[in-house]
């Protein structure tokens, strides 16, 4: 189920503007990969290009290759909708569908894939996904209530449950904890640790301690210079990255001497 991702010399454009240039990396299956770097350096753009969500912005395009287990994401024959069904995403701010109950929120993705689902089957998916997101015990008695009634941290876990309900191959997280308090953050981080055994996870974070805590590998992004495109400065094992990085600017950033 979980798959690895290979990125090969990827350039990402918004119209004529080159946002990210020349990225090469291999994201391992069943591991957590963190992207760190200052704001505006293209981490989120890079993350979004992994499930073609950046194409929501008109004029966005890429050059280069992204391969998920040998299958190119940007082949002409590949439908972005199909890509997003395989590669789930969790956003910076929790975004459950406001008019749907908790139950329906979890099933939203499944309802898109298969129109008809038996009640028992649906119940099972909801329970499995909510348990997977460590939310089941908190909400099992009020599945019919609106998802918006939950706290921020619970909403974010609901969004994770919604993303894993369709059993994606990869889970992308775009600063999933930046809108949450420390306790909810730690709940999400614990969850990331558990999800790692089943999914390939890529997480963007501004919080370097968080990257150090949750990830196996880390990519450091930075702008080449002001006004220049973003690039991947260093991609390395997280422990090595935080103890003894290969690149000077990585060390400067991590030790807080810069950015």
């Amino acid at each position, binding site marked *: 189920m979980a798959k690895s991702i290979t990125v090969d010399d990827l350039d990402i454009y918004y119209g004529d503007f080159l946002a990210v240039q020349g990225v090469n990396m291999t994201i391992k299956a069943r591991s957590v990969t963190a992207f760190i770097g200052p704001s505006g350096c293209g981490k989120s753009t890079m993350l979004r290009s992994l499930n073609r969500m950046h194409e*929501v912005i008109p004029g966005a395009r890429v050059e280069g290759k992204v391969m998920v287990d040998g299958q190119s994401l940007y082949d002409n024959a590949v439908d972005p909708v199909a890509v*997003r069904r395989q590669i789930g995403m969790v956003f910076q701010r929790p975004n459950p569908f406001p008019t749907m109950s908790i139950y329906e929120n979890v099933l939203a993705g499944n309802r898109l894939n298969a129109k008809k689902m038996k009640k028992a089957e649906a119940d099972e998916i909801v329970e499995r996904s909510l348990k997977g997101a460590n939310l089941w015990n908190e909400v099992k008695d009020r599945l019919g209530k*609106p998802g918006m009634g939950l706290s921020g941290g619970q909403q974010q876990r609901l969004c994770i449950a919604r993303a894993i309900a369709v059993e994606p191959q990869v889970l992308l997280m775009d600063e999933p904890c930046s809108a949450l308090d420390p306790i909810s953050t730690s709940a999400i981080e614990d969850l990331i640790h558990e999800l790692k055994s089943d999914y390939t996870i890529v997480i963007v974070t501004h919080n370097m301690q968080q990257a150090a805590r949750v990830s196996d590998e880390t990519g450091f992004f930075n702008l080449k210079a002001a006004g220049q495109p973003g690039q991947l400065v260093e991609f390395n094992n997280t422990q090595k990255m935080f103890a003894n990085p290969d690149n000077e600017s990585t060390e400067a950033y991590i030790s807080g001497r810069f950015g």
Partner: protein
Amino acid sequence: MATLAGVFIFLTIEGVPGFFQEEQFYKGAGNFWGYVDHLLFGTVLAATIALIVAVPLAFGIALVVSHYAPKWIAGPVAYVIDLLAAVPSVVFGLWGINLFAPKMVPIYDWLNAHLGWLPFFEGPVNPVGTTILTAGLVLAIMILPIITAISREVFTQTPVLHEEAALALGATRWEMIRLAVFPYAKSGMVSAVMLGLGRALGETMAVAMVLSGGGGISFNLIASSNPTSIAANIASQYKENTPGTLHVLIATGLVLFLVTFLVNFAARWIVAGNDRKMAR
């Protein structure tokens, strides 16, 4: 609010005597209800036709403009639709009777020949096309801009967050619209339809000019004699205003006011009902 109350008080004071005038003022109908029932029917029928035609079209255009078309098409299209709203209803009336109605006659002939077994297209076909269906279609064009403009506005205000949530789950654009845009825009869409309906129910000149009225209650949409609408009837009868007629006309106005109010209220209640169901 105060204006609304003022209008209501005026209509009640001036209109209630209209319910109890002597028989001569009801044009052979005997009593007020006999007089007003076919007017009310005509009003509702024309407005219903207008809504059936205009609402899907307006939502469709609004969606294309807000979510499908590239910017360089969407802008001009939205602008042209807005311009339609600025055309005075007399112009729509003139256009309707001189150009649109005659053009509709062959279509009515066809409907009568092929779908004549439906009560709506029973015929005989009106030779000049001044039917309630024509009036309804002209109304549809008139209410299209307001419904389009308001629904476009609420569609574009859908939070990107919710749209992205749907897209990231692998929704196609249409699925994203169903999942994120419609639930968010629902009450705005109802408001848009209500404003359109209000205009269709109250529209005076265009209906008075296009429709050859005088008929009774009938679902035959393409015949020569049609039920006219309350507002059009007030406009055409107003010049012969003896106090008695005037009271009767104001009373019909009161009926129209109440109908509009009730429809509005019902629509709000339905929307609120949906929300209540969610809250439980």
